[in-house]
């Protein structure tokens, strides 16, 4: 106060100082202690006492700019005339940066460092059984069904091709596969390159389209602040990760890994016979230029190679199944902020070359997607943001090879259909979305997306809302329509030949609630999805259009309070999914209708430097259509099966327990090591990959998953900072 008096202009010294006083409360009318109340432009101020009261003396002025600041609450500013001075009652609103309805959005889950994240970046690499694979980590989030042990993302009763994956907002290809309907077993982006994963299992905003079920946004690490190097070696993989901080805001990251399952199979054995065990390599480089504090210019290029050869059986033939693939992607993204405008541009190219052969099945299906996308955020007011943008893309694909005419006869030399198809599919899209905060504790986003594909326009309205209720929690809701163009491979296999199949359509309605923020926390969501115009593949490798479907279910994630130092997360998903069976035309269970999926992960720090974790996974068995008999015409070498009711039986339930332990040690300043050991499928449960029949279909037998009990170990050496 004395100091403030000294500051007075001489002309004002004669006047008595002004006194600004009052009380500060929160929205629930509780007094707030420790808030910093002051007159802007002076150092005059005070901290509120335990009853929320304050008194500030300041030189008399015509008007006073009173500011209130407190961590966790929104800034409060008030200009008051000297003649109007009176005791103030100020209500502080919760800060938008804290976890409120703004951060909690329907079906949106974050793996990163930000508030409200359900997984940390370390969880992605340390969850037992995920093998440091990004897709497998996403599979532990609510809404993802554990259909089998592949890396496909089957979300809320949908096929894995209904989930789109973006790298720095550049779209990656998720092509349909004829012989591996659950997706590949290994090989997505190196998780150590990722800064955060934003996974939305439904109700995603208008910015994202051409997906019926879900989107996963993978954001890579930014420019390294310090140069560093990381070298890792394990039983089946080794790699290096180098980060270089350059001058003038530049930087570089480079990651290279090689993996080969042979040592693991040699040590632990395998229920499968591999001529070439799964192996591959990946390399990724990212270049960064932050040419001013708000600007980020990033180029990420990645290449992944993989192949395997394994003995495979069907009733008609036993042969070596060979698959080899190369996936490449490059994304150039730019983001900046100019006052209230925040533009963003992403140019991406994603290419996949895959060859598969087995019996008379011999297919090469290279495809390439080039896309340009741009968006701009305009902060209209402090509580309203307009987002608009567009994208243009071209999907070039080639289908080359032979596919058996009948799924029941895949012998070499069997009757086949030959394909030599080149397709080029241009598409465009535009979207607009208005995001508002009608009250301090609520959020409403309304958007519309228009897609042009094959000369046909589709319109997708999207609405998402959330509201934080007093002493209850946060309620969320979302509604939207979603379209997805038919995959070129399925298009090529359709009876309609060159006639373009219409885009598939889905509508989603989601309602949810969350109690708590990080730990303890409980989040529950229920949803209903309706499908139309579905294009699906028959067992004879033909595409049938105009399918319908429905899925509904409930997803739960809980983080109970730690007990005896053990932190836990439990994720449970229930789904009932049914679709038109493409073989019979009848409505039946979907091929990936897995009613119950449960994942529980417990982590505990042992001593000071060891972290131990256990994960338990359970999932209902995948449905299949049983064979109830078989016929064989004279002169025919193979039997033709007679199928029962579509998807009327299930494989045995899937269950797995995995353990891991990691030991961290700093060797010297800037040098640290991590050693880890993992045991997968500790109980050596015989999970079933598929069920097969003998050649005459009189008896059937199970094909076991390749993931039996296995020991894995390795280490990581890091030099320098992050």
């Amino acid at each position, binding site marked *: 106060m004395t100091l403030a008096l000294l500051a007075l202009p001489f002309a004002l010294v004669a006047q008595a100082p002004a006194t600004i006083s009052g009380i500060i409360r929160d929205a629930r009318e509780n007094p707030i202690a420790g808030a910093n109340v002051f007159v*802007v*432009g002076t150092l005059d*101020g005070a901290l509120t006492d335990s009853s929320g009261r304050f008194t500030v003396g300041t030189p008399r002025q015509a008007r006073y700019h009173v500011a209130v600041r407190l961590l966790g609450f929104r800034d409060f500013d008030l200009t008051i005339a000297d003649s109007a001075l009176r005791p103030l009652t100020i209500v502080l609103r919760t800060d938008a940066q804290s976890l409120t309805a703004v951060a909690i959005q329907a079906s949106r889950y974050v793996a990163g460092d930000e508030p409200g994240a359900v997984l940390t970046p370390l969880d992605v690499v340390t969850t037992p059984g995920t093998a440091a694979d990004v897709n497998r980590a996403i599979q532990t989030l609510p809404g993802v069904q554990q259909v089998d042990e592949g890396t496909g993302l089957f979300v809320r009763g949908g096929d894995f091709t209904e989930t789109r994956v973006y790298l720095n907002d550049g779209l990656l290809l998720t092509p349909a596969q004829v012989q591996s309907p659950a997706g590949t077993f290994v090989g997505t982006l190196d998780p150590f390159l990722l800064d955060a994963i934003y996974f939305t299992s439904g109700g995603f905003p208008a910015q994202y389209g051409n997906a019926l079920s879900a989107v996963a946004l993978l954001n890579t690490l930014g420019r390294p602040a310090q140069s560093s190097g990381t070298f890792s070696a394990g039983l089946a993989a080794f790699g290096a990760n180098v980060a270089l901080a350059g001058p003038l805001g530049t930087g570089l990251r480079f990651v290279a890994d090689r993996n080969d399952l042979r040592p693991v199979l040699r040590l632990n054995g395998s229920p499968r016979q591999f001529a070439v065990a799964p192996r591959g390599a990946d390399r990724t480089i990212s270049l960064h230029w932050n040419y001013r504090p708000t600007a980020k210019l990033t180029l990420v290029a990645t290449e992944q190679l993989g192949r395997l050869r394994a003995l495979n059986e069907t009733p008609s033939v036993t042969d070596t199944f060979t698959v080899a693939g190369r996936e490449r992607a490059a994304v150039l993204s730019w983001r900046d902020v100019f006052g209230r405008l925040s533009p963003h541009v992403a140019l991406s190219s994603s290419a996949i070359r895959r060859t598969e052969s087995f019996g008379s099945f011999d297919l090469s299906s290279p495809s390439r997607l080039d896309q340009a996308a741009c968006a701009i955020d305009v902060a209209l007011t402090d509580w309203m943001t307009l987002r608009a943008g567009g994208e243009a893309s071209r999907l070039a694909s080639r289908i080359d090879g032979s596919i058996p005419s009948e799924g029941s006869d895949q012998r070499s030399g069997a009757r086949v259909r030959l394909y030599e198809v080149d397709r080029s599919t241009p598409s465009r899209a535009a979207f607009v979305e208005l995001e508002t905060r009608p009250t301090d504790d609520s959020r409403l986003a309304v958007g519309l997306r228009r897609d042009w594909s094959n000369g046909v326009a589709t319109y997708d309205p999207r609405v998402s809302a959330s509201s934080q209720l007093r002493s209850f929690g946060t309620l969320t809701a979302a509604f939207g329509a979603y379209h997805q163009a038919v995959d070129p491979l399925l298009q090529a296999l359709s009876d309609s030949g060159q006639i373009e199949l219409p885009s598939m359509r889905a509508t989603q309605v989601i309602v949810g609630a969350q109690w708590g923020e990080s730990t303890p926390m409980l989040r529950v969501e229920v949803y209903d999805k309706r499908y139309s115009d579905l294009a699906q593949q028959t067992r004879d490798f033909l595409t049938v259009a105009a399918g319908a479907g429905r899925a509904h279910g409930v997803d739960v994630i809980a983080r109970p309070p730690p007990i005896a130092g053990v932190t836990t997360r439990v994720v449970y998903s229930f789904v009932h999914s049914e679709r038109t069976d493409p073989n019979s035309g009848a409505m039946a269970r979907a091929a990936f209708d897995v009613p119950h999926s449960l994942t529980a992960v417990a982590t505990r720090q042992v001593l000071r430097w060891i972290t131990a974790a256990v994960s338990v996974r359970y999932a209902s068995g995948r449905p299949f259509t049983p064979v109830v008999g078989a016929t064989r015409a004279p002169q025919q070498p193979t039997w033709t099966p007679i199928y029962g009711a579509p998807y009327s039986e299930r494989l045995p339930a899937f269950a797995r327990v995995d353990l891991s332990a990691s030991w961290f040690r700093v060797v010297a300043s800037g040098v640290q090591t991590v050693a880890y050991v993992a045991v997968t499928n500790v109980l050596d449960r015989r999970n079933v990959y598929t069920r097969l029949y003998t050649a005459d279909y009189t008896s059937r037998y199970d094909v076991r998953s390749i993931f039996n009990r296995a020991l894995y170990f390795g280490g990581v050496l890091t030099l320098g900072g992050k």
Partner: protein
Amino acid sequence: MNVHTIRRRAMALALVLVGRTALHAQSNPTPSAKAADSIRVAIEAGVDAGDLTAIEAAAALAERALAAYPDDAMLLHYRAYALYRAGTLVFGRDGSGKARPYFDRARDILEPLSKRPTIPETYGLLASVYGMQIASAKVSMLAGMRLGPKSNATLDRAVAAGPNNPRVWVMRGIGAFNTPSTFGGGLDKAESYLKKALDLAATDAPEPPLPAWGRADAHIWLGRVYAKQKHREEARAEFEKARELQPRNFWITQVLLPSLDRQP
């Protein structure tokens, strides 16, 4: 003259008078520099007395000054420093849960600041904040894996920016004291870093508003090193030297010296 200009001028005048003690030491200090120095003095007084309210008041004072000079590096540094000091006091009294927001906020301020030209102490402070975030994390090992390399790198940056800055060496010594030798720290390293800090402090004469602490801290932590090594008399000598510099220091008089007397 618009309202904003009037406010800036009034603020400047206020800060000139507030920072009058600094006027004697600096020929032409800016108003924000004078405010920063006043805040520095307020923080040190609060730390000296172990008075959380005084430190929080100093942090609030920095916030008020930042309302007028939002990008001033020294004001940002001292706001973060006050939060760090408050956090460490809360950590000792109420545990990690209540201390965590102080360190989170300090880090939010320091990380952008460390990307601009700044004083070596800012890097050292950021490294210390990382250290306290590790100590106060729910699973400190996981936090250590994430923040440990950052802390080390930032401390290295501090040493590179201020190789002859005694406060940097004090912070390095504290880091080594709190880190087991198997993790790259240890008492021997702490002792050598703190002795180097004392050597440098003998000729250290920073001008306001630059940080001027360090000498008493080096004696305190060197005393703690000796106490841990069971060299009670050497420890007492260091604590006494610290008390000569800061006779009212709560930690020295009420905690460290009495604990030495209770040592078997």
